[in-house]
């Protein structure tokens, strides 16, 4: 990628990873919908040849198709919401919305590592970071910690006000210490490492009132 500064390359990387994850998820849902609807079709074809399909089984399969369409729709909505992040260019972002969105998209990646994500979020909280930077930071934190987490475990993401900062903590059972995030990356975002027993702990800049 020529003529891009590290920040731009970071955004491109985030868009690539988010798109890859979301499209994998959508493709998987479509594959299941395809198999189930073709099975229904084959059962009806057999019915036309005299082997009557079980109505309960048909209802069950149709119910599952509807459920998987709903899941695919949620995945598309998440991808669309992420695409709209690029329009939020202000210096602060809605952290609760950002965490919910990024964790929703990352959930499949976590599941492939056999890790379940749980969120512990306040009602509302903003951070003093542009939305895309906050999302980039979150993605990187999750990717780093999930790789080190014990398979079959639960990884809890906790976001809360902490003095004059915002604390982001990832808590879970680790197989090894997660790789440290590059200090240059954290400095670039104005983020400081936190102190505590979490697998990863960061102090994020608070949202400051502007104007006035």
């Amino acid at each position, binding site marked *: 990628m020529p003529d891009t500064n590290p920040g731009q390359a970071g955004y491109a990387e985030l868009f690539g990873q988010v798109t890859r994850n979301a499209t994998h998820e959508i*493709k*998987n849902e479509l594959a299941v919908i395809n*198999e189930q609807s073709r*099975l229904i079709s084959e059962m009806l074809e057999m019915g036309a040849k005299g082997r009557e399909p079980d109505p309960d089984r048909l209802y069950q*399969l149709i119910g599952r198709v509807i459920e*998987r369409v709903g899941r695919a729709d949620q995945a598309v909505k998440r991808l669309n919401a992420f695409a709209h992040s690029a329009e939020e260019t202000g210096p602060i972002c809605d952290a609760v919305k950002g965490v919910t969105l990024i964790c929703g998209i990352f959930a499949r990646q976590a*599941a*492939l590592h056999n890790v379940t994500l749980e969120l512990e979020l306040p009602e509302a909280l903003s951070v003093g970071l542009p939305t895309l930077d906050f999302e980039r930071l979150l993605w990187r934190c999750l990717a780093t910690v999930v790789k080190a987490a014990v*398979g079959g475990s639960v990884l809890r993401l906790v976001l809360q006000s902490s003095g004059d900062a915002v604390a982001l903590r990832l808590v879970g059972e680790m197989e090894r210490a997660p790789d440290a995030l590059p200090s240059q990356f954290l400095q670039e975002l104005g983020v400081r490492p936190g102190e505590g027993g979490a697998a990863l702990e960061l102090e994020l800049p608070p949202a400051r009132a502007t104007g006035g």
Partner: protein
Amino acid sequence: MQDIRVLVVDDDPDFLESVSERLSNRGCIVDTALDGAMALEKIGQNLYDAIVLDLQMPKVDGMETLKRALVNKPSLQIILLTGHASVQVGVEAMRLGALDFMEKPADLDLLVEKIKEGRARRIDIDDQTREAAVREALKKYGW
């Protein structure tokens, strides 16, 4: 089509169930596994004409399952099925010894053709292995 034994491996129970039923409707005897570890256990215990293997799975992924399965049973015929095919992954799978690489949603009739091809190849390889063993024994005893 009779006595074609297939193991279908996928971490999505809905996908596994539908594909299995459709393959059964086409005369295959289908066994299933929800992850790579379970698949390797079943491969160790049973004889299959073909394995239909999802690429992205938790614990042991498709590529790792492919490698480990072929170490123990080199005549296994494995068809990788993935939600997101790329040329790179396809080439890697074939290099590791996969029979083929198909993208989801796959045409099931085409998949059945591949399974039949796998069965023919497995029988051929097993015959060759048996013949080689007999030749070796004859040579050893100077017959």
